[in-house]
């Protein structure tokens, strides 16, 4: 599998797929997409990188352990739900803040933060499993 062509194309492909995954994540509220599918795309991107360059290189590129990314995502999703408690609203009530930047309306909301959490959990978990399977026998 480690052909020269694959190894040359893989980092490029990974980069494009990661960007695309974020795009899918963010458009999800209004168009097809969302955190779950975005996370799957990002995990595939990392899996491709791992296949081409080796699991160790992929881990190094990620800097943190993927399961830690997943844990962070879960905490983020939980906290997004708890934010409403500060306003004396039930758990997971959606809170919305709309900004207008240069005549473009930008929405920041707790469901969006929640969706980012979903993205990170899916990405982290699948990437962790894929990298662990890709890793050479005996390596961590």
């Amino acid at each position, binding site marked *: 599998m480690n052909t020269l062509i694959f190894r040359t194309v893989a980092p490029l492909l990974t980069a494009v797929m990661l960007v695309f995954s974020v795009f899918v994540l963010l458009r999800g509220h209004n168009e097809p*997409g969302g955190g779950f599918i975005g996370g799957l795309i990002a995990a595939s991107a990392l899996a491709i990188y791992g296949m081409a360059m080796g699991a160790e290189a992929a881990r190094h590129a990620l800097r943190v352990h993927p*399961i830690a990314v997943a844990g962070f995502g*879960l905490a983020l999703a939980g906290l997004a*739900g708890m934010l409403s408690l500060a306003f004396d609203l039930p758990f997971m009530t959606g809170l919305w803040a709309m900004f207008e930047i240069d005549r473009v309306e930008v929405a920041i909301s707790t469901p969006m933060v929640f969706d980012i959490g979903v993205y990170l*959990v899916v990405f982290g978990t699948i990437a962790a499993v894929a990298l662990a399977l890709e890793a050479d026998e005996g390596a961590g």
Partner: protein
Amino acid sequence: MEARPDIAVALVVLLPFVAAALFPLVHRLVGDVAGWVAALVPLAGFAALWPLVGSVSDGVPVRVAWPWAPSWGLELSFLVDGLSLTFALTIAGVGALVLLYSGAYLKGHRQGLFLGFLLAFMGAMQGLVLADNLVALYLFWELTSVASFLLIGFDHTRQAARRAAIQALVVTGIGGLCLLAAGVTIRAVTGSWDLSAAGSLAGEAYPLLVGLVLAAAFTKSAQVPFHFWLPNAMEAPTPVSAYLHSATMVQGGVYLVARMTPHLGGEPIWNTTLMAFGGATLLWGAVMALRQTDLKQMLAQTTLASLGLLMLLLGAGTELAITGAVLYFLAHALYKAGLFLVVGAIDHGTGTRDITALGGLRDHMTVTFIGTIMASAAMLGLPPLLGFFAKEEMYAALALGQVQPLVALAALVLGNALLGAIGLAVLIKPFMGEVLPTPIRPHEAPMAMLAGPLVLGALGIVAGLMPAQLGELLAAPATSAVLGDAVDTHLKLGVDLMGWPFWLSVATWGLAAAAYLRLDAGRALLRRLDGKLGWSFDRGFDAVYFGLVRLAGRVTRLLHHGRLELYLLVVFAMLAVAAIGPLWAMGGLPAWPRTADLRFYEWGVVALAVAGIVTVVLARSRLFAILALGVQGLAVALLYLLVGAPDLGFTQFMVETLSVVILALVMTRLDLDAADGRPFEDWARDGGVALLGGIAVTGLLWAVLDRPLDLRLSDFFNAHAAPVAHGRNVVNVILVDFRGLDTLGEISVVMTAGIAILALIRSARRRPTVADPKPAAQRRRKATA
């Protein structure tokens, strides 16, 4: 000073828990005087409760409540009436002396932890007797069981202690569950969690409630046939036996029966059951006590007898009987705790507890001897001790009656006589006669260990000299609380020499003396009988307990056999049954055959999917099969896109892609043949289940399509997604907003599954070195060479 009942109750119930949590730390600070410090906690509780005696004895119970879970209608409520106050004062008073004693008894043996456990138990016990709310009652009830477990198993390096701890926990735990069921039933019947609001519980649920309450009480208070755990609980350090297993925790069942009497009492089923079980336990304990030579075991058996006696009196249920029970509870708590502490002092001073190996200690342990005299006299019921008045009262309650009370009276006289004989034996055998050689040269116990027996004995005498005051302050209010009816005290100092009760007492003493003189012969006879019997309740418990463990093991091995292909087979077979079974059973099978109205390109995608699945089945190589499975999955994703579910199709694409990648990676790790070489029987079996599953799911989907689609939910989500949740993609809005909680649960599962998979991969990688380190080491050596 104005009495603040809420502060008093908080101090009594909560302070011990706080102190228990801090105590290991406190112990490190104060060192050897830890017992004295710990004793301050119950003393504070006692001082806080004492001002309430006035109000309660005037017939005004004090109720305090804090909000607990308001949305469930729960409040943490406590009721201080005559009954609970009598128990609470006893728990605090005896507790102070026992804590003081423990400080000296357990010097250097993880004392901080032990005193902490005892304090926690005290808080739970106080909560149990003061609670008005049924949930709180159950909670404290279970906490006493847990504390008892910790204390019996305190010396956890000994197998016998661990076994006794588990046995006590199992038996009292069963009772605890019965109490929970009783509490829920009472709530269902009355609509209130507060016991004080219950009133009479006669009605449809009455027999059930009586059964549940008595099961809880009989297990906690060790009535025959649940009595066997209590003698075994003597594995605990002696202060625990004195406190939990004679004076307080085992009285929890007695308290429960007394507390429930206004709500459940008065019916023949209640009275007869209590008298029958109580009487049986009284005689059983009294006879079995004769059999023992270990002082602690003798006392444990007499505790059984006393618990049975209390149940019997509560079953009799008349005013005199209840007053007798209250007095006997107090007298017993004083003398039995005293006797246990004395036995601990003897054990401490001589190194043995065997009554046949002890003698002539009166000169070496004079103060202990004095404590024993007071306790034994109370056990015999000699005037003017409190034990005497308790005995007079119970005889008076039953002397004038018909057949049933007469049988009970005979049991009482006989039981009391045998208890008296044990009292004489504990007093005379170790202390009188010639000095026998003991493992340690006999010496007197330290001050802290003598205070308990002396103070408790003195209290028994003082209470006996002031029966009128005791009756007015505690006995009459407690009797009123049990009867649910105000009564006045009739106790006075003096003996009616012409009355029945007195002559029954004389008969009791005579019988006691006779039984004492024949003690050795009786013991020999009982031991012979026991040897012939070859069965005991204790062994019965083991048979049931280990039978359950074996059954659980067998069931586990049957279901959890570790063969993945069988698990999958069962899962998919059940899926098929669950999908099609109900339709078949209820006549909802879909119409057959059907035609599908598809466009040519849709037929094309279907053909792709079919081609994929046929290839999976026919493929020679596993890798090829995995790829074909991916093709089939992608075709399904295409179908989703074509029928207008882009989100679903999109996700399906990614899931299929990743499935192929991960399956292929797993394949490289498993040491499998490239081709699937399973025998024909397996192939047919697996294929059959697969076909069945496919048919079942197809049938289910067809059946769904046969009905008009219910669009209420879809309409709701479509109507509200954009205006309320600011999103036009309804699927995503459902996932992150409408049903966000579900998603939160799902991603938690995803992450947990991921961690589990990582652990599996790592353990599989490590296994060869763990299971067989030598060959691995050899391999490494070869590699380096």
